[in-house]
């Protein structure tokens, strides 16, 4: 089962003084286990461009489509047996403490 991990900032990060885990170690460990298929950090929101097509017209505008305080700063695609396994992977990511992580399963169009 594929899950997409949205790595986001949060207005209230963890205040625990112990150091956050190293992101490179996180990547290496979960690439090796086969749970992380791919992923990347994203450039800042000032580089974002939004594209829409309406009545055959392409509308290109600056900025992310939604103005929120929490920003998506990266993503990782996971392959996990179930949600609990995905939660275990997500909670080991440094941004689970520095920000927050949203886990979304792939849609299952086969399902009735």
């Amino acid at each position, binding site marked *: 089962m594929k899950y997409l991990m949205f790595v986001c900032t949060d207005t209230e990060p963890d205040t625990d003084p112990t150091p956050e885990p190293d992101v490179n170690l996180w990547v290496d460990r979960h690439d090796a286990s086969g749970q992380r298929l791919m992923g990347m950090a994203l450039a800042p929101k000032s580089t974002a461009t939004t594209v829409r097509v309406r009545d055959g017209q392409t509308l290109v505008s600056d900025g992310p489509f939604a103005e929120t305080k929490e920003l998506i700063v990266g993503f990782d695609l996971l392959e996990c047996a*179930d*949600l*609990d396994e995905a*939660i*275990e992977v997500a909670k080991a990511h440094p941004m689970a403490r520095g920000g927050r992580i949203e*886990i979304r*399963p792939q*849609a299952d169009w086969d399902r*009735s």
Partner: protein
Amino acid sequence: MTEARAAAAQAAAAAATEAYQRIVAPLIRITGDWTLAEDCAQEALALALDRWPADGVPDNPGGWLMTVARNRALDVLRRGTVERRKLRELAVLALTAATAEPEPEEIVDDRLRLVFTCCHPALPLEGRVALTLRTICAVPTPDIARAFLVSESTMTRRLTRAKTKISEARIPYRVPTGPALQERLPGVLAVLYLLFTHGYNPDGEPAFADEAIRLARLLARLMPAQAEAHALLALFLLQHSRRHARRDAAGDLVPLDRQDRARWDRTAIDEAVGILSGLGGTGLGGTGLGEPDLGDPALGEPGPYALQALIAACHATAASVPDTDWRRIADCYDRLAELRPSPVIELNRAVAHGYAHGPAAGLDLLGRARAGGALDGYPLAIAAEADLTARAGDRARAADLFRAAAAHAHSDVERRALLDRADELREASDGAAAA
């Protein structure tokens, strides 16, 4: 209906409901489809309720229900065309009536897995409670809707959303192990606690308290090493033991100090005290609630439910309010305030210290509890100050405080009781001044 027929119908209903709860978990596991499993189990239940009163309860009620439900599930699956349904069909074929014979461990384990799935933190809390009642306790959706003051369609949507998320996000059907169990168990216990309080509150559904007790028993039996699961069961039993004494003839709440203790359920109290004695590790000084086992690090410090149960046990085993072991209660509140700091805990802690160590100690703690402002206008906080002030000897001021508490009372009964206290103190105070 004759008495015999009524009794037969009642026995049939009890047997069918009990069996239903045992077949629904394996059906969900095998079909992987909550709605299908529930629909089929419901149909089997309806058929049983129709036939058993006349035909008699079969020797193996679970097996009977499972056969009917399984055949129904196969009918539905055979109408499906998708390949994966064929695979599920094979799994369902393997479900035999024997799967639902009374109490094989696998069935019991299935129910425990179901509890952890229904109480998964990735589901909204209201969905967890509703799903637990619907799927594990087999409470009909309209009854759940009524208890939570929402329409039946709202409750149906809530249940559907929860089941859809379980299926689409693939929330596992499994009891977590190791550190994950310690993370998840408190959430499961919290859902049970919510269920229980909903059965226990004045406007609640009394049957929910019984369901919560049954589930707590199941958890305690299946997770013998989890002290908090046992403690929760003990806490439920102790609160439940007062069910016949906590309301007067008019249905109004009777405070603990005025309850007729002869009406407390001694069997439930004895069972709860037995459970708490068995836990050990409570380390709170022996007062007949079992020998404290300070030296066993595996059992650790008592958790929040153990502390609440110990407090309830002190009340339940005391002959009267003055005879209550307030020192032990004060100790428990000290620890509870560390584990679960909250203004109400601090208030109760102040009251307990007031009994255990004198009104001055109580007033001191009460002042600190109210410093944050969270207890402003809370009648019980003002009444506590009034009571402590009266016992400290200032009856005139205590009477004024009881009057102030009455002005904030939430009900007429509460207001009357507070004004009565004020009047008693006023008379005593005037009498003393005149003498």
